[in-house]
């Protein structure tokens, strides 16, 4: 069932890849970007700070500091530990950056080792994996605080053990615990235990699959129990449902593969894009089929990951990007298999590779030379570089700020913050919005520019009679700060 293990002792490819990934991940973080500019990155750091400060696992940035039940605890716990080592924010972000880069590099090392042990083709080992780890989406991820690298590391670790040469109760427990850690790093980590269980079952050991599941339960149950116990129904979190926290809003599966395929063919015109996407995705699926017997843990966990991220309502594109190394592995296996088949498939492979090379290659080169991967974060940070210090000067310490980046505002100003209510395009339901803001004892509103949805809400609130909105300052065509007074 298992493929022969091949371990050329002189090959240092995994270490070489790891050091390259480490250096590039650090290089990708040379820009000064404010933590929280992407939203969730700030929430992770805020939760880490709460743990580091000994305040418990709570959203200190929100009024009432509700428990952080909706964010898996592993990554914030690591940040909390690092926070204790270096408690000066934002200086300590350097330590977080180093850790994330090291986690990504370790994942790269383990993945390359895995590819070698599973005797995957040179195309996978020397082309697909480096491209997967050095891909722009991963560089973007490396630039923000995200549990992605930790998830990938635990994921690869679990798959490494589950697909290993020897399966024993001990390795099954290890695979289960690592899957549990992946789940504690990110909700998408649930896919890992699915993959591990499928792999072990596929290898004919249902007993070991059950042991792995037990390991996973043992690792994750305390967290689930605590979340259940600390579920803040009726508290601030409940009022924030439908905003960004905790709501299981049903939505149609968007196809998690789209961001992965999209990253490979970024600048292809629409009709061709769909055709190319179908070909690329089909080739990746074929690759999965081809590798299923040799690397069952990897293929099944990746497919489970795609399914999970398709249905999980809170998975942004970034969450899917972390699967890029596996996706490229499967794609490379599919390309390799296709090339050996008839002329039609050969042609498909040639077309797909050409499109990827031209489209993605150009994108990657341009982005690397101009550091374009950092541009979104710099753009998102820009308004807050002036807003954050101005908020500190202009608002009292007990102010509650409504903003689209609550964690960022709290981290840099120490002011509690709440997100804006949803559906503000065109001002939304201003009565409900005003009630929501007043209910949360909001004292100030921050908008980052005239084109953001919140500006429409601000414009409409100015006309309300039951609230008073005063301009504290407003840059022409730029950010502004408003003082809110709720009547009664």
């Amino acid at each position: 069932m298992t493929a022969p293990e091949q371990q050329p002792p002189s090959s240092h490819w995994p270490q070489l890849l790891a050091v390259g990934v480490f250096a590039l991940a650090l290089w990708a973080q040379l820009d000064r970007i404010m933590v929280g500019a992407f939203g969730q990155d700030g929430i992770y750091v805020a939760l880490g700070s709460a743990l580091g400060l000994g305040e418990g696992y709570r959203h200190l940035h929100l009024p009432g500091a509700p428990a952080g039940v909706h964010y898996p605890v592993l990554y914030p716990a690591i940040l909390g530990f690092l926070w204790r080592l270096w408690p000066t924010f934002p200086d300590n972000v350097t330590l977080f950056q180093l850790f994330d880069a090291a986690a990504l590099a370790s994942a790269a090392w383990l993945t390359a080792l895995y590819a070698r042990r599973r005797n995957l083709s040179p195309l996978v080992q020397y082309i697909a994996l480096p491209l997967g780890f050095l891909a722009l989406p991963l560089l973007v991820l490396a630039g923000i605080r995200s549990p992605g690298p930790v998830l990938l590391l635990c994921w690869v670790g679990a798959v490494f053990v589950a697909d290993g040469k020897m399966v024993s109760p001990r390795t099954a427990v290890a695979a289960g615990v690592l899957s549990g850690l992946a789940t504690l790093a990110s909700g998408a980590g649930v896919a890992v235990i699915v993959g591990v269980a499928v792999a072990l079952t596929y290898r004919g050991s249902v007993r070991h699959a059950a042991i792995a599941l037990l390991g996973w339960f043992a690792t994750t149950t305390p967290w689930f129990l605590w979340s259940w116990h600390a579920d803040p129904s009726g508290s601030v979190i409940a009022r924030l449902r439908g905003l960004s926290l905790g709501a299981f809003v049903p939505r149609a599966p968007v196809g998690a593969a789209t961001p992965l395929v999209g990253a490979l063919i970024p600048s292809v015109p629409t009709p061709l894009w769909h055709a190319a996407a179908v070909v690329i995705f089909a080739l990746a699926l074929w690759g999965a089929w081809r590798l299923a017997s040799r690397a069952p843990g990897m293929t099944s966990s990746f497919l489970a990951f795609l399914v999970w991220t398709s249905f999980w309502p809170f998975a942004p594109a970034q969450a899917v990007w972390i699967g890029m190394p596996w996706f490229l592995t499967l794609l490379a296996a599919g390309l390799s298999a296709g090339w050996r088949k008839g002329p039609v498939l050969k042609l498909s492979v040639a077309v797909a590779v050409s499109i990827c090379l031209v489209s993605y290659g150009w994108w990657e080169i341009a982005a690397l030379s101009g550091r374009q991967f950092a541009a979104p974060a710099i753009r998102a940070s820009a308004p807050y570089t002036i807003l954050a210090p101005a908020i500190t000067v202009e608002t009292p310490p007990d102010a509650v700020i409504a903003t689209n980046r609550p964690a960022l505002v709290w981290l840099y100003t120490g002011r509690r913050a709440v997100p804006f209510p949803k559906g503000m395009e065109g001002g939304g339901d201003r009565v409900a919005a005003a009630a929501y803001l007043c209910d949360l004892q909001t004292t100030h509103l921050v908008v980052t520019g005239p084109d953001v949805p919140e500006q429409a809400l601000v414009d409409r609130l100015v006309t309300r009679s039951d609230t008073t909105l005063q301009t504290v300052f407003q840059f022409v065509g730029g950010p502004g700060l408003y003082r809110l007074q709720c009547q009664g």
Partner: protein
Amino acid sequence: MPRLTPARAAWLAALVASLVYVNALGNRWAIDDPFLVRDNAAAHDVPTALSQFFEPYWPTVEGARAGLYRPMAVLSYAIDWTISGGAPWWFHATNALLHGFATALVVLVLLRWLTLVGALTGGLLFAVHPVHVEAVANVIGRTEVMAASGMLLAVLAARRFRRADERHANRWLIAVLAATATALFSKEHAVVTIGVLIVDQWLDPERSRRSTLGLYLSVTALTVGWLFLWRAIAAEYAEATVAAGIRWLSPWERIATAVPAQLDLVRLLVWPMQLAADYSPLVIPQRTEWGLVASIAAVTSGALLALAFAVSRKAPAVAFGILVAAGSFLPTSNLFFPAGIVMAERTLYLAAIAPAAVLGWVVSKPALHFGARERRMLGGAVALILVVFTVRTLTRTPVWRDTATTVTRELLRHPENYRAHVWLSEVYAVSGDSVRALRELLTATELFEDPFTTRLLVPIALARGARSLALGESVRAYARSPGHPELTRFLVDSYLALGKRDSAIAVLRHSLTVEPGNRGVAEDYALLLTQAQAPEWQQQFARLRLQWLGLRLSTVGPGLDSAVAAAGAVSDLSEAFCWEVNATLLPLKAFRPELIMRLRTLAAERGLDCEEGV
């Protein structure tokens, strides 16, 4: 007589190295010791040192910090302070013991290529080499000893890694990484550790049992991670730390100055009889052109490097010594980037392994070829060298007794050293003798123009009523670093002392033009305009700029309306109007862009041409 073994040789060399600094126990705090140890809270207890592990090495002095990051050194000071209660002799004893440890490591490293006697001889030379006095007899020189020890430990651990079986290889890899990390967190020089490891393997006659690429990759990753940390913690202060002797030179001039200094490097390693506590711009002259001395130095350095490669097979110890010396000198060589020094004896600590290796090799070879008589003669010569070096070390150590002793002894040898005069002035100032302090500072300024000297001189001159002197010095310093906030303040104070308020205001305007974001200068400017009872519109503009810089943005928008209205009510606007408007242009654009047109009209109506800004 007990048989000489590698361990005994190492112990013997360590003992000699420690004993030769026994007279350092009488030393106290000298030069930078007070700032970094005696008066540094982080160096006084371990928890504080650990809590400040990610802080720059230099504590903040008058708002300025240095671009150095050495938390292991601070931790070692804290341990010493906790044990000794801050007794200087204990710190010096630790330094001597650390020097002994480093010397033992030198013996063990050289043993790879030399006979036992040769390695011991090399170790003894390293132990008593006078160039080490600054690193060992001065407390903060410990950073050099710690970094060198870490690098040598890494070399020894890497050798064990290369020979270890599969089971123990990882253990030695971790040892290499731990030693490298200790070195890196002790002093920035250790960034060359990977080079030292490569050289050692290249020269090692025994083939490695395993591939070492993984080891090098691991050390590279560690070094890259450390660089990332250093960049975040200390890099922004690095520019302020650049040595005065090269700070205002172009890259080419810097190289033309730095290359001749390599002759001093060779001299100090070969015959270190003439030592200096500081190599200021006159001790090592600034050069603006490539000259004969630079050519000689370049040829000498090139020849030594060529020699290292040429003898790599016949005398690998010599090659190792030369290459390690060159490598350890590289970070402060000023060849690739400006460093904090042009030359300092303490930075040659590890470089002294070069003469040690050469002497060890010379002693090792005769055992094979020389007769008994020649061996006796050689032994006598070696003994003589060791005795001479020991005597020089013993006589040099008390020079580092305290700042006053170091400085006065330095001035006797190098009266042209402007920094020694600055240090002496500080000694006088502390003792309350401002006349002598001023005199020393004036001498220093005559020798070399360094704004740092002015920062000490002007307050003393003003306190003593020497206003014209203060003004002259301030003007000179400001011309060298225009816009510098502290120099701006001195120049303003000097003008104000002479009753020239308008000149002071003009200086502040110039400073704000050069550094528009300087809040302190903007505060001074607003204050001075108020004191001068300047027109209301002008005061309002100054206050607005201050609010803008302080991000008190709620007042900026309405304030702009008010300031423009006040200006509009005045019929005779001066040229200063244009400057005020230009200096306030950013807030104008951000809050009241429509006012720009009004100001344009206002200026035109008053016959002013400030079109560029408005």
